[in-house]
């Protein structure tokens, strides 16, 4: 007997029926959804990478730090790693869709990056990256936020660089600052130049270039906001990062 007849006989005897087409459709949609989810999360990772890269002081880094220091401290490796995992997930899931195998790895990675970068730039411009960075910092103990990541450079008062949060406006010529190691400083800013439309009020994070006076006093020459404010990410703007000029 031929194989086709043997198979037909078994199908009849065991009352076999084709599996429901919906189970296949569902499986296909599941892989599509996972691939799209990986693109969306990848776009958020890219938004945070843009946020980190855009808010670094590259000119100052290259002036005062070594290339190894810059490479080691300023790049968001965690997010690069997450992005790599997401690319693999998107690739794996897309390849599992019905005709996903027709696309080469090169083409899929290109499509992934193009869509993630476009979407990521949109997320960044809407302010998602800033919100996520802050949320992760609050919720995940191992997470290093932008401020902490910049501390290697900005927590160096001896070399004239200090950063932290304004905790009290003492008078028009000075304010109190809590640095990234929670140490309190008196900052003299009567001759300081304010950049990035930074707002001189409590609760905001700033970067200061100047010179140390003594163990807890610092004379500011230049004050900048910690987050660059000239991108249109206003949607999630909160009191911590206002756009007003010095209002004191």
């Amino acid at each position: 007997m031929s194989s086709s007849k043997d198979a037909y006989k078994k199908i009849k005897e065991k009352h076999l029926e084709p599996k429901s087409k919906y189970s296949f459709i569902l499986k296909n949609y599941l892989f599509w959804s996972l691939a799209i989810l990986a693109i969306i999360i990848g776009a958020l990772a890219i938004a945070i990478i843009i946020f980190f890269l855009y808010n670094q002081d590259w000119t100052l880094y290259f002036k005062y730090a070594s290339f190894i220091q810059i490479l080691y401290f300023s790049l968001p490796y965690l997010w690069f790693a997450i992005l790599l995992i997401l690319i693999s997930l998107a690739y794996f899931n897309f390849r599992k869709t019905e005709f996903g195998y027709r696309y080469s790895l090169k083409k899929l990675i290109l499509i992934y990056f193009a869509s993630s970068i476009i979407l990521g730039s949109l997320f960044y411009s809407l302010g998602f990256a800033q919100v996520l960075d802050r949320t992760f910092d609050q919720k995940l103990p191992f997470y290093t936020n932008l401020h902490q990541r910049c501390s290697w450079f900005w927590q160096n008062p001896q070399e004239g660089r200090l950063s932290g949060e304004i905790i009290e406006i003492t008078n028009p010529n000075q304010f109190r600052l809590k640095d990234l190691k929670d140490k309190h400083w008196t900052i003299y800013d009567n001759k300081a130049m304010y950049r990035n439309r930074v707002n001189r009020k409590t609760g905001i994070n700033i970067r200061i270039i100047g010179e140390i006076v003594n163990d807890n006093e610092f004379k500011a020459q230049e004050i900048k906001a910690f987050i660059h404010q000239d991108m249109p990410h206003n949607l999630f703007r909160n009191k911590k990062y206002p756009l007003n000029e010095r209002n004191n």
Partner: protein
Amino acid sequence: MSSVVVYKGMKIDIQASKKLSDQNLVNMSLKNKDYFLLLSTRYEAPLLRYIRRLSGLNHEDAQDVLQEVYIKTYLNLSSYNPKLKFSSWIYRITHNHTMSELRKRHSRPINYIDPQDLVFIKSNSDLLLETDNKLNLEEVKRAIYSLKDKYKEVLILRILEEKEYQEIADILKKPMGTVSTLLNRAFKKLNEIIIK
């Protein structure tokens, strides 16, 4: 020779069924499993030959594998998408099932080319050799089977099964560019072996 197959009282006219497209038979099989016999009969000879070419299994073992392929095909019939050629789809199932069967048996494919294959090779010799050497078919046969599985698979599909690049890509679930590269390398390696 009669083209009518009788099975359990059901008369199947193989000649008449030839007028129906694969897609028609798939749709009819989903409603009535008897039509699946027509569909499977249509692919009996080529698939059996393909299993033997791929695995080197003897006729009986290859028939057993094919029977399992048919059952698998029937169970998954509603997942068939007409955007794909039915032949590519059933070849894909056959390929995957044969390879998994070989893995289960812990055996490597054995050299197998039936006499008809030599005719195929001869007719495709312009694809095979860019040298002036006189083509020795036995050598070509041996050379194909001495290649790595990934090269052998594409060569069998291209030369012996006479599949187009897109069909090979659909059967092996690889991008067409990859298939093209594999074929180029396979032909190159084949030439190197034969020239040696």
